[in-house]
């Protein structure tokens, strides 16, 4: 679909007063957030604070009830926008990997490049194999996902998202479903993506990871971004009492 007239040049992603409710539950109650190209932002908050909901809204898998999302200067909450075209430019990786069980690892990674981006089969496969190789998965290219460990599956899911060359990558608690010993391999892959300049918004419970990798951390509470700031500052010396509360309870676990 053609670009709308309502363009503005600013951040890669700009979220303004976004609201989303399920029934009587105001999950998002006016979210404001912006992300610049190349930035890595971590989203923290207690369970049920709406992290996943926000990410699904940003990828247009859910419609927002109110507010505006600007992506690459385009208002993507405009109902006339073709959501499929927007999703092509945004990657989203889920907690539960969600690989396609009926196709091989290579088939998973090449599906979108071939079917959505119109790449030739050979070309898509060569690129996918190069990516898999870089993340230590080349030997797994021709097996089916359910023969892989959770960590491997999640790394394939990351490769699958990266293979579409997204301008923005959304990660929803990509390590929460993993056994502790498998968390490291996934997090180091995310760190590697950051080094390559990938713009990411990462919902996570891994606070030490957030401290290491994030440029900025946002604390989500009661449906709004309650506090945000540079990673170290927010995690080590938060200004807001509620943020302090959350972090204290978190470290007490």
């Amino acid at each position, binding site marked *: 679909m053609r670009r709308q007239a309502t363009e503005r040049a600013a951040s890669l992603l700009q979220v303004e007063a976004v609201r989303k409710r399920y029934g009587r539950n105001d999950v998002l109650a006016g979210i404001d957030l912006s992300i610049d190209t190349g930035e890595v932002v971590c989203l923290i908050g207690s369970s049920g604070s709406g992290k996943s909901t926000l990410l699904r809204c940003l*990828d247009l898998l859910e419609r927002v009830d109110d507010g505006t999302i600007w992506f690459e200067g385009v208002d993507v909450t405009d109902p006339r926008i073709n959501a499929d075209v927007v999703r092509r430019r945004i990657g989203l990786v889920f907690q539960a990997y*969600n690989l396609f069980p009926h196709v091989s690892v290579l088939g998973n990674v090449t*599906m979108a490049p071939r079917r*959505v981006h119109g790449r030739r089969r050979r070309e898509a496969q060569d690129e996918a194999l190069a990516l898999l190789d870089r993340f230590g998965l080349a030997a797994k290219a021709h097996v089916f996902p359910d023969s892989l460990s959770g960590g491997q599956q999640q790394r394939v899911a990351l490769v*699958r998202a990266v293979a579409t060359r997204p301008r923005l990558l959304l990660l929803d608690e990509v390590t929460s479903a993993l056994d502790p010993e498998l968390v490291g391999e996934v997090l180091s892959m995310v760190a590697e993506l950051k080094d390559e300049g990938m713009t990411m918004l990462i919902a996570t419970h891994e606070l030490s990871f957030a401290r290491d990798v994030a440029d900025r951390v946002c604390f989500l509470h009661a449906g709004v971004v309650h506090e945000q700031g540079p990673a170290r500052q927010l995690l080590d010396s938060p200004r807001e009492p509620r943020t302090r509360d959350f972090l204290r309870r978190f470290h007490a676990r």
Partner: protein
Amino acid sequence: MVLGLLSWAIASSPGWSSVQQSYFDPAEARLALPEVAEAFVFNVRLFLVAEVTILAVALVVAVIRVLPSPALMPLKLVAVVYTDVFRGTPTILVIFLVGFGFPALRLEGVPTSYFTLGLIALTLSYGAYVAEVVRAGIQSVHPSQVSSARALGLTYGQAMRLVVLPQGLRRVMPPLLNDFVSLQKDTALVSVIGLVEALRAAQVRASNDFNFTPYVVAACFFIAVTVPIARFADWIALRQLRREQGRVLG
């Protein structure tokens, strides 16, 4: 063992020789065989074509029923009514209605060939059953599969075609094949509108000779075709079970 005892009991029963005469007469079987075989080709042809049209109708109806779009409500209603009506009506009745009803309309363009009429009737009747099987398959695929397909930029149609249907259809393959086993048998029902298929050919032969052996010959043909399909269905089901339990790669 049981079978052996049973056949011994039957063979030694007082009425056996007369039953053997009228049902298992080798001379009569030899006479009936070419006629029934020739007519059976028709059953197989009808089966093969109907398989394709039924699957096509079933896919369309099933997909319409699971579409999330509220704008398609009228179309969905049509699909629901169609499945309800044709699943509730006996196949033989549908064949009667289509076979005699359509030509009676004497409308331009309405097919009058018995083959086409039989095909339409079987497709309408079986399409409703198979649509429900396909729908169950679609719904057995977790919604998160659609989410991740859409997140990759695939359209709803692509997500359906490339992600949901391959998984869903594979899962309902055994019941689907069972429906096709019974379809193969039900091709005999089109004889009621005067089509000369295997059963009809046997019937003609039998009433001429006052002997039922041609029926047995016809039965053998049906069994010969349905048994392999049934075995194939078993094999698919078993392989699926193994795959789910042992994570065997295929």
